[in-house]
């Protein structure tokens, strides 16, 4: 057993060493170094910072994904060999630097451990881009609603919609002022930005759904709505827009395993039909989604998550 471990570390070391030498020899040939990584596909973290107390923005080296990804797509991340596979939306990418940006909230063991890593560290794998890209068109006036960490997901969509010529109105919200993220980025990519906080510590006092209702009441014509955030928020937005028949796209975040359509862990019910969010989604017409089912399936491993957290040694580092 020990021998095997020593052997493993040794081969690993040689492999890593090889990667460096080869990277040096043909720094330009990305394909080559990509290849050499073989089974040990490592991705380096190049930047990390906290957007709020428990939301982290992280930049990772993933040149091929950076080139290929479109708004609305996600990656699956594994922090280490024993880790879980978790889906995270690609918030941004930089083709030149060969990096992608992810934004995540620290909720369980995996995100806690991920947040404990720093620039220069490696994670064991990034798979993507996955899921269908957002349907982008010039719809006219669109409203992008983001709640909590969902702002990170709606942000790339707002960017693409703006590029496609839409008038973009964004509504972003959080429980309080300190938890608001990407306010400036959203402002820069929107024609109009409305900010809400549940406690009124910043902007409109109330929920994003309330701000949207006000906007509808003011008779402004809305052609399409993109609403991304916690399940109750998406459900509330859909309840607001349903009577007006305004098409409302939501991005669903069920538990996933392979994220290639192989396991069905991510199944959701849309218009009474079972869909796999990882390949049929992650975006669906919110008026057709069974949110109660989504919410109950998301609770499936609460006990295990707690157990995992109790054992977790990844301390929260200082920021």
């Amino acid at each position: 057993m020990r021998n095997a471990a020593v052997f493993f570390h040794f081969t690993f070391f040689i492999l890593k060493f090889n990667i460096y030498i080869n990277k040096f020899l043909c720094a330009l040939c990305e394909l080559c170094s990509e290849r050499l990584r073989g089974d040990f596909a490592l991705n380096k973290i190049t930047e990390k910072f906290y957007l709020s107390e428990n939301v982290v923005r992280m930049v990772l080296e993933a040149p091929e994904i950076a080139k290929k990804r479109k708004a609305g797509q996600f990656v699956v991340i594994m922090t280490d060999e024993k880790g879980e596979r978790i889906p995270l939306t690609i918030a941004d990418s930089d083709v030149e630097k060969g990096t992608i940006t992810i934004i995540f909230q620290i909720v369980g063991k995996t995100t806690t451990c991920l947040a404990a890593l720093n620039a220069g560290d490696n994670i064991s794998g990034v798979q993507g881009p996955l899921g269908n890209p957002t349907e982008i068109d010039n719809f006219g006036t669109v409203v992008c609603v983001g709640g909590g960490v969902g702002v990170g997901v709606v942000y790339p969509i707002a960017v693409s919609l703006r590029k496609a010529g839409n008038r973009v109105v964004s509504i972003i919200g959080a429980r309080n002022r300190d938890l608001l993220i990407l306010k400036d980025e959203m402002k820069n990519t929107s024609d109009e930005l409305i900010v809400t906080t549940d406690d009124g510590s910043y902007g409109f006092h109330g929920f994003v759904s309330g701000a949207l209702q006000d906007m509808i009441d003011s008779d402004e014509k809305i052609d399409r709505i993109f609403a991304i955030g916690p399940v109750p928020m998406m459900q509330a937005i859909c309840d607001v827009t349903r009577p007006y028949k305004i098409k409302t796209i939501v991005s669903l975040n069920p538990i996933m395993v392979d994220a290639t359509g192989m396991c069905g862990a991510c199944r959701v019910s849309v218009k009474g039909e079972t869909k796999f969010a990882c390949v049929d989604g992650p975006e669906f017409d919110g008026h057709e989604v069974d949110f109660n089912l989504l919410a109950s399936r998301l609770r499936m491993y609460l006990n295990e998550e707690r157990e995992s957290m109790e054992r977790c040694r990844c301390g929260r580092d200082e920021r």
Partner: protein
Amino acid sequence: MRKENRWKDAGAEEMKDKKERETIHRQGMPEQDPKLRTRNFDEVPLGYTEEMAVAEAKRCIQCKKPLCIGGCPVDVDIPGFIKLIAEGNFSGAARRLKETNCLPAVCGRVCPQEDQCEKICILGRKGEPVAVGRLERFAADYERESGNITVPEIARSTGKKVAVVGAGPAGLTIAGDLVKLGHEVTIFEALHKAGGVLVYGIPEFRLPKKIVEAEVDYLKKLGVKIITNTVIGRLKTVDELFEEGFGAVFLGVGAGAPVFMHIPGENLSGIYSANEYLTRSNLMKAYRFPEYDTPIVRGKNVAVIGGGNVAMDSVRTALRLGAENAYIIYRRTEVEMPARIEEVHHAGQEGVQFKLLTNPVEYIGDKDGWVKEMKCLRMELGEPDESGRRRPVPIKDSEFVMDVDTVVVAVGTMANPIIPATTPGLETNRWGHVTVKDENCETSRRGVYAGGDIVTGSATVILAMGAGRKAARAIDEYLKS
């Protein structure tokens, strides 16, 4: 005079050998005690000792025209490798196996030999066939454990590049064959580990993952490049692979999409597809949670729907995860079960309860959305259907309810649509399986070949390997022309 004598002696020797042979019975396989093994994930059959292997190998009568080879999808020289075992040359036997089968340690464990080589072994007509599978496993294990693995000669580089999509048995086989012929082979695998069903589906207690890892490492030694975490169709398309300079593409992406029954309540918490249940346990090692991060529901009353190998693997996994009652719910009888007899037998030994002629019609959940009951109908067998098996028909008013807290649906798989959807001109049949022109595995797209479950629908490891082998020959020809 002398010559005659020699012949006579030889004849007598042969007679003696034959006598000796007839007194040896097929060597049983030592196994872990059923009571102990349901509490661990260690392998169930323990493997032959050297003595047992030699004794078993001596039973082979070395037919002049061996029928067994015809029963093997990859034409292993069965009498040849068995003879080497009988002579005590175990490494030689392993090398002989590897000439035609690059995954003998895997095949020796999971091939349905009773339907292939052993089915037509001449000894089987009067008594018991030679235990080809167990001998195959023995030779392969011997070589691996001796650490004395020889790498065969690799032909001079042809300068041609081949992309293999999917690192299951089909992809691994073709990669090994083509790299030996001097082509540069790169495997693109969607998951983070190579092996396909061998790593995500088949459980540790039937196929230890270190064996698959050793086989994959061997391919790397041969020079095969394996790039994981790469979903072809998403990160790059088949057409983009050609643009990158690959001369041919092989699709070995398996039949990886689960089938559900579309009955009420099927999305309740606690209901899994077999693919998810097994992937969590095997690939993600959820049975070692919380050491590994991925969780799995450890149900007390677990119902597994289906009667195939996948169902047996799931139900035996459930037992090992601590189920008090682990049921197989199957709508026909034991005779029609597609699972290997050995697996059904093992499951029975371990305490699995078989509810045959039973079909679920609805799942009932508690207030939190967890499955708590399963409504079933009793069935009887009617007229035979297209498959020739008698069709199960529900018995009127036979509804009953079972208490369950976990359900695993193992009623089959379909083709995964990612590749066909992103590869213009790639033809598929009405089940979504990629169609191939002939034995050569060529698809409707020039330079694109396919084999394994993506073509046949879920089948076996060895058939996938056989397809990989044929496609390797075809691609080699294609690249030369």
